[in-house]
């Protein structure tokens, strides 16, 4: 059983004529009994379906395929009895290597052993058509529409398909299953995997050394199996005359959800957030509201977490117009923190892009801005990543110098982790 609670951080006061409302909504899901509370719980216990998509293209030869096999075996060992699963070998086409006949196997001691044997026989060869792999995963998932669907995708290279081909596959898979993506080595493209992960509500990560794969896979599958409620959506109501400027998740990572809105009625839309386990997610909501006179207060948004239309938790975002400049100019600390985190992700991605295009000046400005924001957020892990790409001369002002010789993996790591955020200090 998961119990959801939510809270809002915002400064509700707007100056006369002000229209833009910002709020941070924190949603926490905790395992709980039947205790009373305003948040409702939802029975878990739905079957999980896990599809492992392994890149077996020619470039995976040597040590990589050996470690990939090992990682897949570790992931399979993590599957508890009763979980539905399959393993797909990906090349320029997709091939299910386990189970042989059924679409999905039911995990047991026997099927886990059989699957591991099949994985050990995998050989590298062929191309990379990630869209094809995803489409096969979709087909397998749809044989059990009642399950909570998750896939894990491992690749070491760039997709050999056109963007349009990949988009078509993503369009079909979106909403069917979630997918976490992992890249191994230095030949894959961070932005490309990020795009896939974003559409499929997963995250993206760099595996620096093949021997780190097994632990990573185990952790991903454990997390996926821990999610007891699927198809959770944020349902955002705004009053007549108001518009949603943006809705983005800002913890644990930055993902813009604005474009994923599905209209419920004239004033309400749903933003899919996938499956939830015990966790905390934070959202930054921007609303443009029809202004009221000074002294008037309005509900500028109501944010509900819903499953099958049933509300699990609710948060209210307000707007109150005032003449008191002291009140209307105050910036909420939590909103400021997550605004900074989103800017940080953007600065790193654009900074690295400029660096790769040879625009050192822009790169130094943006990565310097990132260093300044990371320092302000006391994000030491991020500063350590940044340090490998730039020399930070003055973190407070964002003065940095680009390093001449940068390990490609360090740069990719910084890029892949650019969207990861740290919680606002309490």
């Amino acid at each position, binding site marked *: 059983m998961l119990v959801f609670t939510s809270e809002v951080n915002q400064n509700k006061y707007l100056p006369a004529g002000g229209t833009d409302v910002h709020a941070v909504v924190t949603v926490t899901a905790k395992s709980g009994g039947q205790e009373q509370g305003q948040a409702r719980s939802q029975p878990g216990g739905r079957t999980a379906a896990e599809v492992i998509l392994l890149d077996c293209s020619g470039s995976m030869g040597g040590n990589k395929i050996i470690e990939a096999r090992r990682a897949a075996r570790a992931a399979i060992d993590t599957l508890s009895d009763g979980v539905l699963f399959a393993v797909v070998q990906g090349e320029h086409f997709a091939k299910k290597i386990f189970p042989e006949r059924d679409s999905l196997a039911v995990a047991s001691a026997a099927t886990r052993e059989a699957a591991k044997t099949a994985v050990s026989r995998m050989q590298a060869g062929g191309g990379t058509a990630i869209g094809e792999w995803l489409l096969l995963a979709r087909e397998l998932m749809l044989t059990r529409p009642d399950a909570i669907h998750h896939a894990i995708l491992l690749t070491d290279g760039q997709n050999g398909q056109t963007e349009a081909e990949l988009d078509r596959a993503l369009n079909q898979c979106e909403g069917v299953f979630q997918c976490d993506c992992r890249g191994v080595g230095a030949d894959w493209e961070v932005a490309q995997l990020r795009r896939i992960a974003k559409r499929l509500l997963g995250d993206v990560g760099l595996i620096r050394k093949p021997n780190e794969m097994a632990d990573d896979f185990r952790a991903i599958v454990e997390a996926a199996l821990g999610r007891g409620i699927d198809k959770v959506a944020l349902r955002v109501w*705004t*009053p007549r*005359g108001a518009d949603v400027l943006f809705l983005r998740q800002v913890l644990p990572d930055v993902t813009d959800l604005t474009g994923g809105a599905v209209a419920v009625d004239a004033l309400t839309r749903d933003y899919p957030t996938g499956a939830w386990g015990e966790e905390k997610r934070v959202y930054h909501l921007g609303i443009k509201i*029809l202004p009221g*006179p000074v*002294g008037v207060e*309005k509900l500028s948004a109501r944010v509900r977490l819903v499953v099958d239309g049933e509300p699990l938790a609710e948060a*209210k975002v307000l707007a109150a117009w005032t003449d008191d400049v002291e009140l209307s100019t105050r910036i909420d600390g939590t909103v400021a923190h997550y605004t900074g985190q989103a800017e940080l992700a953007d600065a790193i991605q654009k900074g690295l892009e400029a660096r790769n295009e040879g625009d050192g000046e822009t790169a130094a400005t943006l990565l310097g801005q990132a260093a300044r924001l990371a320092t302000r957020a006391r994000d030491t892990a991020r500063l350590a990543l940044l340090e490998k790409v730039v020399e930070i001369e003055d973190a407070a002002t964002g003065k940095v110098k680009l390093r001449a010789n940068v390990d490609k993996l360090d740069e990719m790591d910084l890029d892949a982790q650019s969207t990861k955020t740290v919680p606002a200090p309490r």
Partner: protein
Amino acid sequence: MAPAGQASAREPSGAGDHAAGVVTPAASAEAALADGPAAASPVNAADAVDMGGAVDEGGADEGTAAVRLCQACLAEAADSDVYCEQCGAVLPAAAPPGASGQPASAVPPDPASPPDPASPPDPASAPKPTAASAPGSTAPGPRPSAPGPTAPGATAPGATARPETAGSRATVVPETSDARAEATGVEPTVSLGSTASQGSTVSLEAPAPAAGPRFAGPGGLCPACASASVDDDGYCLNCGLRLGSARPGDHLEMDLGRLAGVSDRGLVHRDNEDAMGLRLVAWPDPATADGTGTAVVAVVCDGVSTVPGSGPAAATAAQTATATLAEWLTAASPHAPAVPGGLHVATERAQRAMPAAAPGDPAPSCTFAAAVVTGTDVTVGWLGDSRVYLLGSDGGALRLTADDTLAAEAVRAGLIPPEAADTAPGAHTITRWLSPDRGEARPRVAVVPVTGPGRVVVCTDGLWNYASGVTELAAHVAALPPDASALAVARHLTAVALRAGGRDNITVVVIDMPGRG
């Protein structure tokens, strides 16, 4: 709007000179409302559908004290009123309507006569109203303390707000419509602050609704949009307003289907001193199967903010003028050429109805702009700087009024260029207006033939300050879907002015012209 300028010579009072031209009060206006359940059906040829609710003589006598209050301004309202006579807000339902078998046109109730003893029992003494008693509403309609029999005219606002053929505009603001119907189950507790002391003499107890709306808060209807969806914290789930934070008259909406109006305080002024009057009147229409249609009366008045009392005076003027025009049309039907005369009578009566000032004080004053749309003509009359625009569905757009302002007169005299008319000093100093201390109030009148489908927009300067050019205004309307309802257009134009700063009160009335839809 600035105070009335000195450019206009004062005239001796001509009050009373035009009384002969006034038609007798139309009992038929009330009769339409009396026929509650039938109000959702096509308008009868003999009925003037009174949505302005300007009849107060017909209320219950004082002995029975059947007090029905406007939730926005706490003014008393007659049982037959749908909208508040004082501020124009939607009134809570009076009582479960009954006596539906009584054809309104056959037995028009005498406003002065005692209530019909055959009316349904008082809901207060029969606390189990049946849901079936309010056609079109989803909840029974308790009313505030209601000793005495129910007036036959009582009916749910949601049911009467659509004088057009049932279903003909089924998509028009269903939310609001449903909400109004639901609202009949809401306990009409008054939540609007300062004037609540008036409520001390009035019992606001209502029978517990048998199936009240789920989100009904203690504040009852939203004063801005009349929605009954209010959450537990008192926020309107349609427009978002926290009910207790609004002032009476901050935002009013009237929706009669093809005719709708929005009046908003704006963001700066302390009070909303604009007023509007809306009315549909039966009028022959050869294009329909039974030859009947409706004519439209729309009036806006902008109270001069620098003269105390101009807001209420503007409300009185708008109501009086609207009622007079409706009566005039009913009597004149089907002779459209008589309309300009009606405009003159309307302004005369409006001016005499306005409250006089104490000796030595300036008299309350307001502008006047009216549009009367029959099947063949749009007739407009005005005094001051409130305006009427005609927006054709084919994209053609026209301003039908010429401001009575110092700047506009300077343009007409060739003293300043036309493009300076709306911004030059004196652009808001009016040279003609309505005021009880003025002489003859003769509006300027223009008549244009209806040549195709379109919309008429009647507005105060609170709107046109932000969209003064006719093409600019037309562009704002064009941002909406072509089939947008009159209310949607009025709301949209109000929002345009609010987003642009809302420095003045904003009133926008929109008329859908024949041939639309």
